[in-house]
């Protein structure tokens, strides 16, 4: 590792920019093993959720002869209350929940960046108003509000669900973004850019945003983990229409169809729980590894 670190910057052969960037990224990540494990874990689950379904045929048929079957070679984690393979459901059950989490994180980040930057740059009454709304939003007990909203609107598409989750998640990042912009605005290099008349767009996108990359990316990841927990909670409580394949829905059925009472269903229950937990852990570790990558001082 050290050998790579000392020789890499001296190499003169030019790699195409994206490739060189990727190599640099991996090199930085590999400095912190936890981050690298997180990255591998996240990639694994993304593969499982979005690529694996193309190769693994869906096993959706009810098999009354194999209800709550023991783990076996054919069914490594056993079967569910309708005799369907648990592994197969885990493969098919990641897509929706992860997509919803990504969309929710994306929406909440966009809201936070937009209004956080506006609050910090415009200031005055607009700032006070945005802050007041944020504070109110922060003080509402989120899970309870989520349950109420879900119960009223019964969001049936993952898109609608993502919007609802995003509406609950933006306040914390907004405060961070606002604080960052406020401090960046006063930084000498931003003042220099103003003096050089480089324009507001340059200042926001070239001077300020790159300095907030770490906040934004790390928040994005944390927002994904929160969105997954929130989904798991409301689906487990049965508050959204239960259609499709989904780790949280698996849990709902496992719990409500009495899997707890069958001695061979331990892995059936643990399957979705572990899928959610491991994916979350990977995300958190990835976030902690990224903190180093974004620190330019640690680059060579």
């Amino acid at each position, binding site marked *: 590792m050290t050998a790579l670190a000392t020789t890499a910057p001296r190499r003169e052969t030019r790699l195409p920019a994206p490739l060189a960037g990727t190599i640099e990224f991996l090199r930085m990540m590999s400095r912190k093993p936890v981050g690298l494990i997180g990255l591998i874990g996240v990639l694994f689950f993304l593969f499982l959720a979005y690529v694996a379904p193309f190769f693994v045929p869906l096993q959706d048929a009810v098999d009354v002869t194999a209800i709550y079957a023991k783990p076996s070679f054919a069914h490594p984690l056993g079967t569910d209350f309708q005799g369907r393979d648990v592994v197969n459901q885990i493969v098919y059950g990641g897509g929706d929940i992860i997509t919803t989490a990504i969309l929710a994180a994306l929406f909440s980040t966009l809201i936070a960046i937009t209004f956080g930057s506006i609050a910090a740059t415009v200031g005055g009454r607009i700032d006070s108003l945005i802050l007041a709304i944020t504070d109110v939003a922060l003080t509402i007990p989120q899970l309870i509000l989520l349950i109420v909203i879900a119960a009223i609107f019964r969001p049936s598409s993952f898109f609608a669900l993502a919007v609802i989750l995003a509406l609950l998640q933006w306040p914390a990042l907004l405060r961070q973004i606002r604080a960052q912009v406020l401090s960046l605005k006063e930084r*000498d290099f931003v003042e220099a850019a*103003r003096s*050089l*008349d*480089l*324009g507001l767009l340059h200042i926001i996108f070239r001077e300020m945003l790159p300095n907030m990359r770490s906040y934004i990316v790390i928040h994005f990841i944390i927002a994904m983990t929160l969105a997954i927990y929130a989904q798991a909670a409301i689906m487990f409580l049965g508050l959204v229409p239960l259609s499709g394949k989904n780790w949280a829905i698996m849990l709902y059925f496992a719990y409500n169809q009495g899997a707890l009472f069958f001695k061979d269903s331990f892995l059936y229950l643990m399957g979705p729980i572990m899928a959610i937990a491991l994916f979350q852990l990977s995300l958190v570790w990835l976030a902690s590894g990224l903190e180093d990558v974004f620190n*330019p001082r640690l680059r060579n």
Partner: protein
Amino acid sequence: MSAPLIELDRVSRTYTTPAGTITAVDDVSLQLGESETICIVGESGCGKTTTGRMLAGLLRPSSGRLLFEGADVWEKKGNDLARFRRAVQLVHQDPYASLNPTRTIAQTLAPPLAKHKKAHGRAARAAMTSLLERVGLTPPADFLLKYPHQLSGGQRQRVSIARALTVDPRVIVADEAVSMVDVSIRISLLDLLHNLATEFHVTTVLITHDLAVARYFAREGRIAVMYLGKVVELAATEPLVSDPAHPYSTALIAAIPEADPTITRTKKRVALRGAEVPSLLNLPPGCVFHPRCPLSEPGLCDVVVPTLGDLPGGRSVACHVALRERQPAAELLGVR
């Protein structure tokens, strides 16, 4: 001096704090000619940085005017204002904060060249190369792709100067630009700034707390000494340093330790009447220096606010006693 290029006309700047109103700069006037070098000198809290920021158009005076080529800057709009902004550039004190850590030197220099000189690609590279050469970062190719954290403090200050030069400024305001770099290389940075004035006719304002630095930098120019928001003395550098007219400048110069054992041991001191600097929240009446001043006269200095007046030799001083006696304070205090 011909018509001034840039001028502060009786500017003041007040701040409202929870503890009350503070006048950071009080009724300061300065006229700077083309390719002049001038230093604003004073201790912390004297208002020198605020004055520099008003001069650079980065801070609006609470009262008074900033004039550029005779026109009021804060009346300007749109393109005129943008042109003024580019004409006056600032070099900051902290070399670790003045460059964007996420951008390479090339990425720092390219945008202003692209926007204001329409220099792209090869032309931009040529312009950046010549700028880096001009600020002494050679060979330029070694620096273009570096990030700020890969450079030393002195090199970063040079990049800051190069960045200021991308827009061909008429005035550069350097706020303590050498105080955070190593002693061994300060002079070369001062020389670089000084060359801008002599070779490229840029008016250069150096704000510093260090009179030795000021004397070296403004050796052909002038020094303005500030105390608690006011300019107390304004004169050509050599007379000011060798024969200060204001009791405060006199005390300051007498107090500076010299890098010469004999001189520093035998230097004559000025005994001040008080050690503590008054708070800006609670300034003394009359002359703000009178509670510490060895020349202070009751009934005059603690009542009447002095204004800058002329002494022989083209120097201005805001001191009742020096102006009445028509002698610099250094003579009156016997520390010449």
